[in-house]
Each structure stands twice: as structure tokens, then as C-alpha cells.
């Protein structure tokens, strides 16, 4: 049993060890396999295929297992390391220590969006992008999206999602309304705001984080550790609610075979959402 800490509480030595383990996964090729996996499993909800990672109820369990795999790879290298979480409702500024020289590095300043500070700056020689949709071989970011400014989700916006008692609801995709999953994933409209929570964080960071190869940016893991923690908070807030759909969908349901019910095996691991409801005994979150 180990602890995932709030990134703002990491000591300088812990930051250094986390970064060193990530750089080693990059060096030995493991890291880019993770990037490919995320991209491969992004299936939009207009398509007929099975959606596991996005626009579907298994958004939470899929990313939980994905992060666990990544964390296991890190801990094989250094058993003192775990994935820290970034609470974007409190650490809201590009000047936050999250984006410090010894941790994630800062934004991409020029028109080329190139991150040129911190351990993941291309010029340091340790962070070559090999999986992406652009020519950029360097990590890109655009914090706060200056050409069309946005702000990170607020505590109030997060509460709007967590207060929702229904885990998910038909049509089980990006159109679902009254769905905790869709309010947190962020396709659900929040008042005047078209996007929310998880999606908005990807947009706020910009660069690689807005695409299917988002894990090219190591902050991806810190963002999704917080998403994972939010699932815990929702469970604690609604002890009577559980993963939906719980039972196989009706024969005529157009989402049958396109989303996972609680006991369906989830690719690429063949574990069920039910098996990932709890992480008790594996890790806990620092509060």
C-alpha cells in the first residue's frame, strides 16, 4: 500500500525522483508505448466500435487501470515513487510550482509552442516526441490558451459534477445529461460554459495535451490522478450509487456492444469495471 500525494506537497527530492523515473521510462521506450495506447483507444461516439476510454461510462475505470500500469512501471524502477495528483481547483496559475524548473517545466512561449524549460525541454536531450500528429519533435504547451483565454475548472464546477447522484445515464455517450461521468469528463454543458472539468483542463494546458497523444505531456498523469481521486470523492458522496450500466443493455439499444457494462471485460486488460471500483489495498490518496 502506497500513497499518491498532492503534487504541491512533494519535497524537492521526491520531485527529482519522480522526474528521474519518468525520464528513464522515456529512455527505454516504455513511455511511448503508453502514449500509443491512449491514442489507440480514443474512439469518438459517432463510430460504431467499442468505446472504452472516452465518451463512455468506463472513462473512470479505464483511466484508473491505465494509470496503475504506468505507476507500476515507475515503481519497478524506483519503489519510492508514485503518481502525484494535481488539484487544478487550487493550483490554478502558470506560476504554480507545478510548472517549476525542477518539475513539469513551463509553458511553450513562442508561436511554436515549444516547452523550453524544465526536464522535458527538448534541448535537454531527454524528451523527444515520437508519437504525434504534428512535426514537432519537442513537447508543446500553451497554458491558459492566450489566443482564446480560458480558466481552469473551479471548486464550484467540480462540485456540480460530484453532486450528481447518477454515475452515468443513457445514451451513455458525450450527450448524456444528468451523468456524473459526463459532467466530470466534461462534454456536458455547465450553464453558459460549453466544456467543463476534465476536458477543460486538457484545453487549458494546450499543445500536446489537446490531442489523442496527450500523455506525451507528463502532466497528463498528474491530471488523471486527480480525476481518479474525484471518482473516490463521488463514491463517498453517493454511497448508494454505483457504476452504470450495471446490467447488459437491451437488444435494441444502439449503445449495446459500444459501451461496457459493469461486468464486461475491458480492453486491453480484460478486467471489468466492477474489479476497478476500489483501489483499497493498492494505494491511497493523501488528503
Amino acid at each position: 500500500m502506497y500513497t499518491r500525494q498532492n503534487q504541491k506537497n512533494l519535497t524537492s527530492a521526491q520531485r527529482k525522483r519522480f522526474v528521474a523515473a519518468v525520464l528513464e521510462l522515456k529512455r527505454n521506450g516504455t513511455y511511448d508505448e503508453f502514449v500509443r495506447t491512449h491514442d489507440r483507444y480514443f474512439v469518438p461516439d459517432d463510430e460504431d466500435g467499442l468505446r472504452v476510454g472516452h465518451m463512455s461510462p468506463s472513462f473512470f475505470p479505464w483511466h484508473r487501470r491505465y494509470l496503475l500500469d504506468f505507476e507500476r512501471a515507475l515503481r519497478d524502477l524506483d519503489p519510492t515513487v508514485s503518481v502525484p495528483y494535481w488539484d487544478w481547483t487550487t493550483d490554478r496559475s502558470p506560476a504554480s510550482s507545478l510548472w517549476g524548473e525542477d518539475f513539469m517545466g513551463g509553458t511553450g512561449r513562442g508561436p511554436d509552442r515549444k516547452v523550453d524549460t524544465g526536464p522535458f525541454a527538448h534541448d535537454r536531450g531527454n524528451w523527444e516526441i515520437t508519437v504525434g500528429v504534428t512535426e514537432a519533435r519537442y513537447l508543446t504547451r500553451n497554458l491558459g490558451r492566450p489566443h482564446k483565454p480560458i480558466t481552469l475548472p473551479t471548486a464550484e464546477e467540480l462540485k456540480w459534477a460530484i453532486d450528481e447522484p447518477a454515475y452515468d445515464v443513457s445514451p451513455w455517450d458525450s450527450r448524456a445529461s444528468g451523468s456524473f461521468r459526463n459532467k466530470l469528463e466534461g462534454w456536458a454543458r455547465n450553464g453558459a460554459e460549453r466544456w467543463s472539468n476534465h476536458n477543460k483542463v486538457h484545453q487549458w494546458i494546450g499543445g500536446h495535451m489537446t490531442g489523442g497523444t496527450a500523455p506525451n505531456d507528463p502532466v497528463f498523469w498528474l491530471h488523471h490522478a486527480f480525476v481518479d481521486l474525484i471518482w473516490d470523492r463521488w463514491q463517498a458522496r453517493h454511497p448508494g450509487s454505483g457504476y452504470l450500466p450495471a446490467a447488459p443493455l437491451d437488444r435494441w439499444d444502439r449503445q449495446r456492444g459500444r459501451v461496457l457494462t459493469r461486468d464486461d471485460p475491458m480492453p486491453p486488460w480484460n478486467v471489468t469495471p466492477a474489479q476497478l471500483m476500489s483501489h483499497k489495498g493498492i494505494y491511497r490518496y493523501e488528503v
Partner: protein
Amino acid sequence: MRPYPTRCNPRTAAAVLTRRAVLRTVFTAGVVSATAAALAPVFRSRRTVAPAATPGPRPAPLFEETYRGRHISAAPAADGSRGGLDVRIDGRPLHVMRRADGSYLSGVNHFESFDSPLDLARAAVDELGSVRLAAAPAHHG
């Protein structure tokens, strides 16, 4: 993948709309679920049929313009892929996908969608800055 966006092929658009209208009528009439089950495959098959290749010259572009110094264009996709559209930035293909609500997503913007291919292409340019798309983009498996 969807066939062409309805606006670029009036004949297809009319056919799709007619079929939609028929289905809507059937569903709203409250016909027994057995009928719905029988129709469901028909309804879904529309989504998977690739449009036939159009003989003759390339289809006229839906739009073509210079936006923030970048050349952006969209035309119906010849092979029915990329969400039915061939969107390009400075001649390089932008991967296009659709959401269930009909809006557009791109390889550059996976976490927000856009009402039109033009909005999609402009948003990609905004996000790219001066970065060029790859000549052969990564594909979803």
C-alpha cells in the same frame, strides 16, 4: 464513419433526411419494440456505409481560405474516411472525427468539438501556432 456531411451532396442529404423522418415517425408512433429492434440495424447501417467513390473531377471544396497565414481547406473525402471530410492545413491532412451530436473533432482537438468543419480547421490553426501537421499523421487503431 458517416457519409459526406449532408450539405455537400443534396441527393444523399434528401435520402438521409427522408429516412430520418420516417424513423422518427415510427418511433414517435410508439410502435412495439419488436419493430424498433427490426429497424435498429437499418438505422445503424447508415453509419457504416462508405460513400461510393465519385467519378470525374474532384468535388468542389466546402471552403478554402487563408487563416492566420495558414491555408485551410475542406472537401468531401474521396474514400469516406476522416469523418467524411478531407480537411487540410497547408496541404497536410487533419484527422477529422464526429461526435454523436454531429459536431466535429480533430486530431489536434480531441477534448472539444466544433459545429462546422471551418470552425474545426480554424481552431486547429489556433492551437498549432506555427507548428506544421505531420505529413502522415498517427492513426487510431
